[in-house]
């Protein structure tokens, strides 16, 4: 589903943020990205949701290649990814449910479907009771739950979490982490960047460790890639189909399954 092949990323100033990294992530996996600040964790996530393009190498996500993808194909890809951040990035002047609904509205979802979808996903993250609260009325952990709800509402293939617990106390951290595991249990892959080594070591999850842009350790895929994984098509030209219920992408008959 996600495959990096000899990916290097240079930013205009400074050395390589990512240096010749190769790995793949399968559908439904839970992967930790660890390493000190500036090691390249965020860069990997940005390359996946195409906020950045690789300087060299290829990033394939859900059948789309960074080499061939045009600017106009980026929004369609992003609709199949969920992203959350350390600072939540909610709109302060909108309630929890409006924040989640916003993500559906701006991709042209049928207005009649928005209400039920928002209610379902807020229930899933345990915030149904606070749907009408504004962000500043919520605790940090609750705000992150809103952000997770927003990321999940389009049924993404993978949830990308960039230091999601970096601003939270221990209790909230455990709550958010448990939520991410629950989400993963329903089949959504999760990639979580964190420098919380205690958390990483306490669990036997796949871990990619980075240091100064180099991938220094990969505990290995939890399970091998099925043959069809990389060429699952992004839904067809009809963009509204993306907003409709769970796009069925499980059975694309690709043959490019090489993984190492």
């Amino acid at each position, binding site marked *: 589903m996600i495959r990096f092949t000899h990916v290097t990323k240079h930013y205009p100033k400074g050395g390589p943020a990512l240096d010749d990294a190769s790995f793949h992530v399968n559908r439904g996996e839970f992967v930790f990205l660890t390493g000190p600040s500036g090691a390249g964790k965020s860069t990997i996530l940005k390359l996946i949701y195409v906020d950045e393009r690789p300087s060299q190498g290829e990033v394939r996500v859900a059948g789309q290649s960074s080499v061939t993808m045009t600017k*106009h194909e*980026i*929004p369609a890809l*992003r*609709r199949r990814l969920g992203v959350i951040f350390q600072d939540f990035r909610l709109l302060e002047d909108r309630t929890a449910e409006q924040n989640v609904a916003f*993500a559906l509205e701006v*991709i042209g979802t049928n207005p009649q479907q928005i209400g039920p979808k928002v209610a379902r996903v807020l229930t899933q993250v345990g915030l149904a009771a606070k749907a009408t609260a504004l962000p500043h009325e919520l605790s940090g952990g609750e705000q992150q739950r809103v952000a997770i709800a927003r990321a999940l509402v389009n049924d993404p293939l993978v949830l990308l979490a960039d230091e999601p617990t970096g601003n939270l106390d221990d209790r909230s951290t455990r709550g958010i982490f448990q939520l991410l595991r629950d989400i993963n249990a329903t089949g959504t892959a999760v990639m979580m960047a964190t420098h919380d080594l205690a958390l990483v070591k306490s669990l036997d999850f796949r871990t990619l460790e980075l240091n100064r842009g180099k991938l220094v350790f990969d505990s290995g895929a939890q399970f091998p890639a099925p043959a069809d994984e990389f060429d699952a098509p992004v839904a067809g030209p009809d963009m509204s189909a993306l907003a409709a219920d769970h796009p069925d992408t499980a059975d694309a008959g690709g043959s490019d399954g090489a993984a190492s």
Partner: protein
Amino acid sequence: MRLALREALRAFSRAPMLSALSVTTIAFSLFAFGLFGLVALNLRSALAQVEERVEVRAFIAEGTNPEATAAAVGDIAAFPEVASVRLVSEVQALERARRELGEFEDVFEAGILPASIEVRLREGFRDPESVRAVSRRLEVYDFVDDIRYGEEWVEKLHKLRTIATAAGLSLGLTFALVAIIIIGSTIRMAVLARSREIAIMRLVGATNGFIRAPFLIEGFLKGLLGGLLALVLTWVTFQFVGQYVVQATYFDSRLAVLGVLGGALIGLLGSAVSVGRHLGRV
């Protein structure tokens, strides 16, 4: 589209102060431009009125065959520079003199004033050179006694017109540029205030067109409102000046609509450029 409109209006209701401020800023920069426009417009029409009176007058020798002068009038009317030709007979000249200078009525006697051919020139041929050229061609007729066209006056008028045009163009361009820059940065501030929304829209996969739409509407509306407000301001100023200072002409409806739409267009383009900066990457 409905969502875009809703989001654009939301921007107004969520930040009424900022919106009011930018509309006012736009209004005043357009107002300054509009005032200048009014002054330029009135100067131009005043100048044009004066210029209309540029004419070349050829006095006809006494006892000239009327057929010869009539034929000459036909020829002269065909000159490219000439707007109209009028033959003023001795009798008509006398009547006019009595009418215009009533207090000297007794002085005028029949035969004291010569007949003349009055030539008015087309717009664009009222400069000293054209006037001289036309008068030279009138000199050719041997029944022409004398030619007058107020040489000094024509030259001064021409100089005034040249200066007015140059000053009008440079000042007008400067005013327009200042208005565009001010409106542009006002709009840019509004977009900047919502950069977080733009970032989130991008993140969840909104297309660039979708992200742009509310901002374009917002910019257009602000420009439109600012333009209308500026129109009201110039109208009030115009009324005030009309009442206490001098009667003047106002923009005709075509110019007024053009001005307001111009404001809206600047708002629209300003928004497009500002949002474009946020969408540019990747």
